[in-house]
């Protein structure tokens, strides 16, 4: 078969860091149920470092695998390092995604940014707003 790479299937079948964090310092939720994808990321942050991360995802195999991979890529990293993770980095780490599933990696990147933005907002930390894309308005489903 091989709709997905072995790495995607591994992260789908054995997702890393599933769950939530009580009293998380930052929580980001992106996507919407109408489109069939919601990703929610919980961050524990200390001294500018992401000390723990958990996720919950409603979505297809590649959505679950993308979020799982994203959590692995930012765990133990500084906020700046986490913000540098792009959707392409997630795709590459997964060994590729089918073209019509690339939007899953975009959501994974957005979930990281949304969670960090939430952390900044809660703590009154100044940041460059242009670095954070606006969340989806939920009216239309993203195409790729």
């Amino acid at each position: 078969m091989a709709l997905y790479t072995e790495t995607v299937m591994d992260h789908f079948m054995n997702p890393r860091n599933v769950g939530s964090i009580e009293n998380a310092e930052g929580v980001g939720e992106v996507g919407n149920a109408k489109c069939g994808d919601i990703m929610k990321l919980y961050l524990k942050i200390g001294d500018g470092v992401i000390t723990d991360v958990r996720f919950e995802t409603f979505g297809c195999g590649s959505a679950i695998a993308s979020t799982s991979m994203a959590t692995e890529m930012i765990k133990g990293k500084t906020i700046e390092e986490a913000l540098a993770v792009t959707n392409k980095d997630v795709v590459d780490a997964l060994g590729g995604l089918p073209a019509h599933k690339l939007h899953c990696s975009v959501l994974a990147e957005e979930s990281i940014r949304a969670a960090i933005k939430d952390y900044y907002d809660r703590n009154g930390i100044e940041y460059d707003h242009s670095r954070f894309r606006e969340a989806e308005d939920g009216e239309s489903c993203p195409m790729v």
Partner: protein
Amino acid sequence: MTVYADNAATTKMSRTAIDAMLPYMESIYGNPSSLHSVGQVAAEALCEARRTVAEVLNASPKEIYFTSGGSESDNQAIRSAALSGKKQGKTHIVSTRFEHHAVLHTLKKLESEGFEVELLDVGPIGTVTAEQVKRAIRPETCLVTAMFANNEIGSVLPIEEIGKVCRERGVVFHTDAVQAAGHLHIDVKAMNIDMLSLSAHKFHGPKGVGALYVRTGVKLLGLIEGGDQERGKRAGTENIPGIVGMAAALKEAADHIDENAAKVSALRDRLIEGLSRIPHSALNGDPANRLPGNVSFCFEGIEGESLLLLLDAKGICASSGSACTSGSLDPSHVLLAIGRPHEVAHGSLRLTLSAENTDEDIDLILRETPAVVERLRDMSPVWKDLVKGRRQFVL
């Protein structure tokens, strides 16, 4: 152990069909249009296959046209009836919201060519009544096309009643019987069917072959220009092995139709009863008038593709109407047509059984599915919102 529960997608070929086909690949390779003896043996097989298919449908052999499958049959029937109607100034077509894309996309194309297409609502159960059809027919209606049984949710339509209404009003009635042929009794005369599409691989025959029944007196236009095969209505050298295999499979299915339906519907009912116990789930489609092998459910809070992947890992082959499984952005038009909201339609599961399935298969599905649904719900933010009351349950 692999449990194949996707028989609405395609079926395993029967031994009877394979055995019937083999000689036509190994030794009887003639072209039925050839005058010589090698060709004439093939011509005889073609003739015999046509007789067999006609007999099962209670049609006459000259009313059967062989095609490449259900999609081609649907395209030809609909386009032909529409263009014939147009010549008499009739450009109104009645159909239903939950037809197969082979029908809906053909109608869409005709709409762009100036036809007016009226798609009947199918309601929460997913069916249409003869009364709805009757109300929709106008003097300028040239065609009613309504599927015999729905491929996704299994509803069986009141075809005999719809046929009666169409005949009374003198409107051509086509039915896409791709999911019904070989599984439900079909009598084109008693049911007043003017045109009917079927596909061999849905009843344990080969892929790439189908048939179109067209009642004598109903005009048929060709889609493919070329030679004079199929009485000039479908050019191209006949797929003799496929046609022979289809006829053998159809006859075998028809000979065992009641016993298979009894066996398969008992398995289906066990499955429906068992899956209904999963909280916040719902059966899709008509619970009473239902294909013997169709089980279609929506499970709230999860997405269908991940459900299929996890079931596949457990050896269960199924399908879903979620957007992610189709490559499109929207979930199944059928599930939306019966009023399932997008987020619920994404969490659909279709299990379609055949007489090849066993009670052990059902045991496995009933053992694994609740666990897989629970696993996905446990990691779903949508499910969590539902449980915590931040989002309203629909099911």
